[in-house]
């Protein structure tokens, strides 16, 4: 770890201002991801701006407009919040399926959005990595790629986004609020994370100098049917091999509305728009769910070691939709 200056931001504006004082500055919130990265030389900032004390820990309901969650609310605070548990069980369960209680107690919502991939090649400077060092190569393509992407990868990068929470946020059509010296803007969740293409060093569309201030959850009338199914190599404290966030609104056995997103399959949470379009108006039954799963996995491009993800994702989708159709619950 290189020496760095440590400063505390007193307000969002102050944080943004401090970020401009040095090009090689980074925000630190809970530090659960950033500090690990610093220790193994993945990042070598000159200045860390501590935003953890900012007044952005609120979880407030906005009349007729869902819930607004401050970027510095902890993962635990959100997962345990009565209103989130009641109205967005999908989000609560997705958060609780990630990391460990201790980590969730300090990890923040903003930090979770910006956690970086767990690709082992990214994680060790002994390996080349285009995400870490653009142009150096991607050894994962010819290496062990069991955890890697089946959608949207490029010949530069096959890493996946590791967050569980973000899969739920993608399904819930969340909006990310950011602030910079240029002002404030809102980013629809699907536009927030990006595919690697030729610049895998960039995980998101966040621009230089921007601070995440909040995440907005629009009201979703059927969010209560939300299901988060996470498959992994052990029962707790492991990243997803494949995960599914699903929510169905079924009226008289017909699917009125639907949300479907996958985790562990791409460089970003993978919303299945085509499968959603297919499901709308159909009967909620196993054959339809199976067809939806086939549609959702169309175009998947598995690598040497992750071919199983295709079938695993299909079956997980069917399972999650089935449970959601029954009103939701633990998957």
């Amino acid at each position: 770890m290189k020496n760095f200056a440590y400063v505390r931001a007193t307000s969002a504006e102050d944080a943004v201002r401090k970020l401009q004082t040095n090009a090689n500055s980074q925000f630190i919130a809970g530090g659960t991801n950033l500090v690990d990265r610093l220790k193994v030389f993945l990042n070598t900032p000159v200045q860390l701006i501590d935003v953890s004390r900012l007044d952005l820990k609120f979880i407030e309901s906005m009349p007729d407009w869902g819930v607004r969650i401050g970027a510095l609310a902890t993962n635990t605070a959100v997962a345990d919040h009565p209103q989130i548990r009641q109205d967005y069980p999908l989000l609560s369960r997705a958060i609780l399926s990630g990391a460990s209680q201790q980590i969730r107690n300090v990890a923040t919502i903003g930090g979770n959005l910006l956690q970086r991939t767990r690709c082992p090649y990214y994680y060790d400077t002994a390996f080349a990595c285009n995400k870490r060092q653009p142009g150096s190569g991607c050894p994962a393509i010819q290496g062990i790629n069991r955890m890697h992407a089946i959608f949207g990868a490029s010949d530069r990068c096959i890493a996946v986004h590791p967050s569980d929470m973000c899969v739920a946020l993608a399904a819930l059509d969340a909006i990310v609020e950011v602030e910079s010296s240029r002002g404030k803007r809102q980013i629809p969740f699907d536009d927030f994370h990006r595919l690697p293409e030729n610049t895998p060093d960039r995980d998101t569309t966040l621009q230089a100098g921007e601070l995440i201030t909040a995440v907005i959850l629009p009201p979703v009338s059927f969010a209560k049917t939300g299901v988060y199914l996470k498959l992994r190599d052990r029962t707790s404290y492991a990243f997803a091999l494949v995960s599914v966030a699903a929510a169905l609104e079924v009226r008289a056995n017909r699917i009125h509305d639907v949300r479907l997103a996958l985790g562990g399959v791409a460089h970003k949470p993978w919303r299945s728009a085509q499968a959603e379009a297919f499901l709308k108006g159909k009967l909620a039954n196993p054959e339809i769910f199976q067809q939806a799963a086939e549609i959702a996995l169309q175009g998947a491009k598995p690598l040497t070691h992750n071919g199983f993800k295709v079938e695993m994702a299909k079956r997980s989708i069917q399972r999650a939709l089935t449970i959601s159709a029954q009103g939701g619950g633990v998957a």
Partner: protein
Amino acid sequence: MKRVMGTSVSRKDGFAKVTGQATYTAEHPLPGLVHGYLVTSAIAKGRIKSISTQKAEQAPGVLAVVTHKNRPKVFTPANDFRNSKLNEARLPLSDDQIHYGGQIVAFVVAHTLEQARDAAHLITVEYDIQTPLLEAQQAIYEALPDVKFNKGNGATGTTEAAITVEATYTTAKELHAAMEPHAIIAHWQADSLTIYEGSQWVMLHQRTYAELFGIPSEKVRLVTPYIGGAFGSKCFPWSYSILCAAVAREIKRPLKLSVTRRQLTTNTGHRAATEQTLRLAAMQDGKLIAISHAVKTYTSPADRFIVDCTATTPVMYAAPNIRLQQKLGVLNVATPTYMRAPSENPGMWALESAMDELAWKLNIDPIDLRLDNETRAHQRSGLPFSAKHFAECLRVGAEKFGWRDRPKQPRSLIHNGQLLGWGMAAATFPAMRGNTTVKVRLLPDGTVHVLTAGNDMGTGAYTMVAITAAEALGVPVEKVKVELGDSLFPDGGLAGGSQMTASLAPAVLKACEEVLQKANCTTANDACAALKQSGRAAFEAIATSAPGEDAQKWAFQSWGAHFCEVAVDEAIGRIRVTRWVSVMDIGRVMNAKAAASQVRGSVIMGIGEALMEECQLDPNSGYPVVYDLATYHYPTHADTPRIDVTFVGQPDLTFNPLGVRGVGEVGITGVAAAVANAIYHATGKRFRNLPITPDKLMA
């Protein structure tokens, strides 16, 4: 006086451990301590063309940068287990050759850890890269004549009437993943060396350092009061230890090195992957007529380590024809080492899986198949077992589990949409003991002081020693003060091979008896009174215990049986182990609580082996792609069922005066097979390659 031996006694070191007062290796405070950091190879085979250290040398706080070009001098130890032993015969930085990914190529010392780590990252190495040999299938194998064994006409003893099963079973490369990472502090004062380092074998460690530096053993002190788990990985000095001690001498400062989680994966051993072909032939009534067990394992080019998977095969089941053979290959993979039941655990995985397959084929209850083929003697040495309550393990386990009521057909137990399966497997581990010496002092206030260099790697040795002394002297356990893990104390032998208790307890017992003899009293109470009266400070005795002639007459072995239930959600490849019963025959149980904990820990480790543990290597660089405790998956609480542990049998008094055999390893043998056997019952699918991960389960 109430008996304490065999009751449940909470660990004496528990409070110190949970309150952070127990001092582990890296925590010993020494004035002027400086810090080391390793630089490891990013390739698995080749040579170092050039190594550039200039930037690192000029970095702030740096005191030394050591590579193969300026390596400190050490002597080559005898490395023969008696006088000295290294984990890796090749001495660190001995030349420019790279034998495996993650091999140490440089060592940086600085005032702070951060400075050392920073400087280490400024070192650049240019390699001549050669294609490494990483795949077991590509290795050239040599047969190991010592392991070879033929009884009868070997495995060819198959008659027309026989039913056979033949299959190949594999285990994955596993890491010890102990809570406490490996670390060392080396402190030279003139020509005396103090080493703080986790050590399962204190005196051999001491002698090894003495040989490495050409100084008498008395000049080396090894301090290791607490070890945060070892499982076989802290038996002898590793290359990093040698480097640290050697560099500390040159820079004339106390030097600490903590190996990072990442570097642990290649510099502190692992359980080598194995490939085992088992062939069993039996008559229709279940009597075995032939067993053949052929094994392939590998070692690194830097040492020769053998996983003798066939060790327990002639112990478990009788057959007129037995053939054992083993081959060893060399791969460009880090040096493997002992890991909890190093030979027995992988061996029993294959044997107990094959027995299950045979039972299904014969349509015989797997318990009956095992009982029908029990052997009363070790079929290699021909010696009878001193005690064997294996049948009782099976009977008691079956009863507790409800085994006999099970629906016989695979896929016939369904609960909440999941397939349930029941499986069982046997467990066994040899009982060993070594030479130990213990000093016991009885003070006038009734305090008993027990000293020995043997140590507690988390197993409960402090408590076991206290229990033995308390029992022998008739004093409360709280009155016994135990000090372990210091080479200034009498030789306490090896904490490995499950032999610490069997080796130490008899010496403690003897020393306590001698204390009473010296006092000429029959109770500690009387002895204390005598001390008070005479004004004498203490009664003291030093006693030694060693294995006797009995080892020529008997084979000593512990036994057990595991029963488990799994729930498989086949569609999505999800599995939970939902129930577990283990019954063990370990001779005398010294501390019921600690012994049960050892079995539980073993079962948990075995579940990890069965379902998730694997250290995969990048196929090009040969460097592991797991890098911490989050990416190397071992069971969490959520993966662990309630584990019901019962002990049966009696003190094995032919083995030692207390009849205690040890319990550290027997519990892990058979666990993986029990899980796979249960999965077969649940799904009708036989898994022969570990770990059985979700992708395999749903395939």
